[in-house]
């Protein structure tokens, strides 16, 4: 089975965001970057799929040369080869999706995994949009996945207050959610092996952006709150304030 997994490089969750000099993106100074956390579930599921059906796992990432780091991490976990779609420009989701779709069309995988969202721009659009551009079915926010020999796919995806079971068929695009699996840690052997695995670099196909960021802003500062007390005696005052001042209960 030909398995593709698309990964992204994002600031880690401990990052304190500062606005960059352009006023439209973050200040990258001192920011620590990681493999997008949801992509770890995607890579793990890709590896499990390969373990069940055989085949190869191809890791794809679009971005600057530094994106090789996240490709190498996926290779260290056990993926077979990488493709870096090199691009240093600011692109919107649609433009990136088109570039990924063009390359994926050529590879023609049986199954394509994404993390359900990238924790930078958070719009959760990439798996569904790439699938649409490829004319493939998609299931996103997936917490359980079963693929049968005949190509039937049964998945559970998270919805408000529960899950829904979804039926579809290969070839398909899957958006992985936390809970789908327990991502493995790269072993020392895996890390060593990753160094000699092939990573092909090619320029990312170019497409126009459909959106324009006017500015990036920090959330309005909150006025300092009040500590009402240090024990249960503060409870009646808290309830009074919630009812009479904040009017929320």
């Amino acid at each position, binding site marked *: 089975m030909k398995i593709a997994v698309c990964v992204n490089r994002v600031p880690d969750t401990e990052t304190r*965001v500062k606005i960059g000099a352009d006023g439209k993106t973050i200040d990258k100074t001192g920011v620590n970057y990681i493999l997008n956390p949801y992509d770890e579930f995607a890579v793990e599921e890709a590896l499990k799929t390969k373990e069940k059906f055989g085949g190869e796992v191809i890791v794809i990432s679009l971005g600057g040369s530094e994106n090789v780091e996240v490709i190498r991490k996926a290779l260290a976990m056990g993926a077979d080869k990488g493709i870096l779609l090199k691009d240093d420009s600011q692109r919107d989701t649609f433009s990136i999706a088109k570039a990924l779709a063009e390359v994926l069309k050529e590879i023609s995988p049986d199954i394509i995994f994404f993390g359900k969202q990238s924790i930078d721009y958070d719009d959760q659009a990439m798996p*569904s949009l790439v699938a649409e551009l490829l004319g493939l079915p998609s299931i996103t926010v997936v917490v359980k996945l079963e693929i049968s020999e005949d190509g039937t796919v049964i998945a559970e995806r998270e919805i408000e207050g529960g899950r829904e079971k979804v039926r579809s068929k290969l070839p398909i695009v899957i958006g992985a959610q936390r809970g789908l699996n327990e991502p493995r840690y790269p072993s020392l052997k895996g890390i060593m092996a990753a160094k000699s695995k092939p990573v092909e670099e090619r320029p990312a196909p170019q497409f126009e952006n459909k959106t324009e960021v006017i500015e990036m802003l920090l959330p309005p500062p909150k006025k300092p709150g009040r500590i009402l007390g240090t024990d249960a005696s503060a409870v009646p005052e808290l309830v009074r304030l919630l009812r009479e001042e904040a009017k929320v209960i």
Partner: protein
Amino acid sequence: MAKRVLTFAEQREGKFKKSAFEAVRTGRKIADEISAEFFTLVIGDENAEKIAPELGNYGAEKVFVVSDPKLAQYSLTAYAKVIADVMREIDAEYLFMSATAMGKELAPRVAGKIDAGFALDCTDLKVENGEVIATRPVYAGKAFIRVKVNSDKKIYTLRPNVFSAGESDGKMAVVEKLNVNLTDDDFKVVAFETVASTKGKLDVTEADIVVSGGRGLKAPENFKLIEELADVLGAAVGASRAVVDAGWRPHDEQVGQTGKTVSPKLYIAIGISGAIQHLAGMSSSKVIVAINKDKDAPIFQVADYGIAGDLFEVVPALIEELKKVLGK
């Protein structure tokens, strides 16, 4: 020709979500501001047809209903086709829908079909010089971007609980049935069963009040305090990443950058110190209460009201006080 705006109003099993009313009201407001004609779309079976007129309460005048027994069950691919076809059919430029589990995967698929740019999970929409400017959180709310969509067709999804549905206008909308030709091929993805996590459980993204617990609770069984408080308030239960990672709570309750981002009216954080990734997911809540032993915990920097005390003493007292005051 006048511009046209379409809002997709989500229903499941013959019931609209509150977020559908928010989307209709907001779509209507934007349409009025840009002098556009306003239409609403409902997809489902005959049950959807029955409830469609009530959208008149939230600003809809004409509601298109695409009704088919096969559409009773949500199908991503079929629903996306219907929405795209209706957008083309009525030549609409703008599409609004809710950023729900359904809307989040439908919007990008519709965008791919009609070549529309999009701004998703918006928390504010404004018309400036005749153009729609969307504000949406990035980095789980650590920052916001103001975005303009430049393509001919434009799609916006609205974060639930942020936009106002307003008071009911007491009006009924006019319903017009539309036919969309659907083949088996359009049902490549079908949701065939829904499993509720627990009976009547509220989702943190949809609830007006969220009560969240963290490591300060010391043991998973102590979450019954959180559940009891949530019960008194009619609130959803949330959790910090630490306790989800520890396996105390299911991950669908996790609030934060690698969990859910919430904007309830009231957020009560109990035994949560306030790691930056948790704060990102909840600091847009309208009112925040923190109960934590450590008065220097970062959670108090975003809290409107705090009690820097022992939660095992404070929370039971809070439950009793609320029962008394709320008459439960």
